[in-house]
């Protein structure tokens, strides 16, 4: 049985390699916000209040492009609706927690944290304080994201644009799913999702980001039925 502190540390260690892509991306996000002409305090407030990578950039781009606040808010909601799926997966492991703890822990659920903690949870179901792993991944992400976006806001885009560091984001997610390429059913689900995301890329409010997972999960359900 691991202690709370050990689980927290394990969570920190499990997510830290992803900071290689998260930190440059955060710097870019902060810098773009200021470049688009928004007040630095507002750009930073987003990292604290929304705390959601790409959705923050989309929000500012929409507003600066003349979209209404309603459209910008709706887009953020739709982009981040994928967290509903993460929550549904995690709820099984967080069930014993008190309602207040569930409310608090929810704030730090992010893509990479969900991915790494979910992998850990599957292998260590019997641990009593599992949620400390999720707190570890989430808090590491939170601290790095705040520092990275702040640096981008204060120092501007000191990361040269020519490096194309936004490309690190798809790479980080490749690192997360690449081991599942060993399983044919997962490969089919991934390709379904990927192709759907390209097909529906122009759907309103960036909704491809939730439409394609839903299509892919339907395919997953079909595959499960075929397997039986």
């Amino acid at each position, binding site marked *: 049985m691991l202690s709370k502190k050990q689980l927290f540390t394990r969570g920190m260690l499990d997510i830290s*390699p*992803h900071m*290689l*892509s998260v930190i440059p991306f955060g710097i870019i996000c902060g810098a773009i916000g200021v470049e688009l002409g928004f007040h630095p305090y*507002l750009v930073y*407030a*987003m990292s604290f209040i*929304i705390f*959601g990578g790409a*959705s923050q950039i989309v*929000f500012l781009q929409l507003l600066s492009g003349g979209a209404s*606040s309603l459209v*910008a*808010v709706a887009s953020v*909601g739709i982009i*981040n609706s994928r*967290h*509903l*799926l993460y929550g*549904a997966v995690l*709820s*099984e492991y967080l*069930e014993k927690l008190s309602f207040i703890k*569930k*409310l608090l*822990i*929810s704030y730090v*659920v992010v*893509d990479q944290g969900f*991915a790494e903690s*979910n992998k850990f949870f599957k292998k260590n179901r019997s641990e009593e304080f599992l949620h400390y792993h999720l707190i570890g991944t989430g808090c590491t992400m939170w601290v790095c994201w705040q520092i990275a976006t702040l640096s981008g806001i204060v120092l501007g885009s000191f990361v040269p644009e020519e490096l194309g560091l*936004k*490309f*690190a984001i*798809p*790479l980080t*997610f*490749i*690192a*997360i*799913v*690449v*081991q*599942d390429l060993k399983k044919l059913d*997962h490969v089919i*689900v*991934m390709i379904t*999702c*990927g192709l759907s*995301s*390209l097909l529906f890329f*122009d759907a309103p409010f960036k909704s*491809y*980001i939730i439409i*394609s*997972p839903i299509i*892919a*999960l339907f395919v997953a*359900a079909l595959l*499960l039925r075929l397997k039986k």
Partner: protein
Amino acid sequence: MTLTAIIFAGILTYFTRMTMIALISRDMLGDKIKAVLEYVPSAVFPAIIFPGIFINDFGTFIEMNDPKIFGALVAVIVGYFSKNIIATISAGLVSYWFLIFFVFS
């Protein structure tokens, strides 16, 4: 004004994070749904990966000889065999940089 919109966007985002964790209990999800949820990482992350590779900053498709495709392939191969996140990201970036700075320039 913008701050109000940010706060609403933040509340909405928080609800997407909190709803399923805090308001759904285990019994509400049947075994079949749980089996499907096993696929969530494979069903969600390609929606971030594919557009990140195949669609450029202007929202249009890239050419088939774009260095990003090559970088992504290198990342997949290195990631598959090394099982190492840092190696995967670095391999993808370095091969991408090699192409944009030395081959395509």
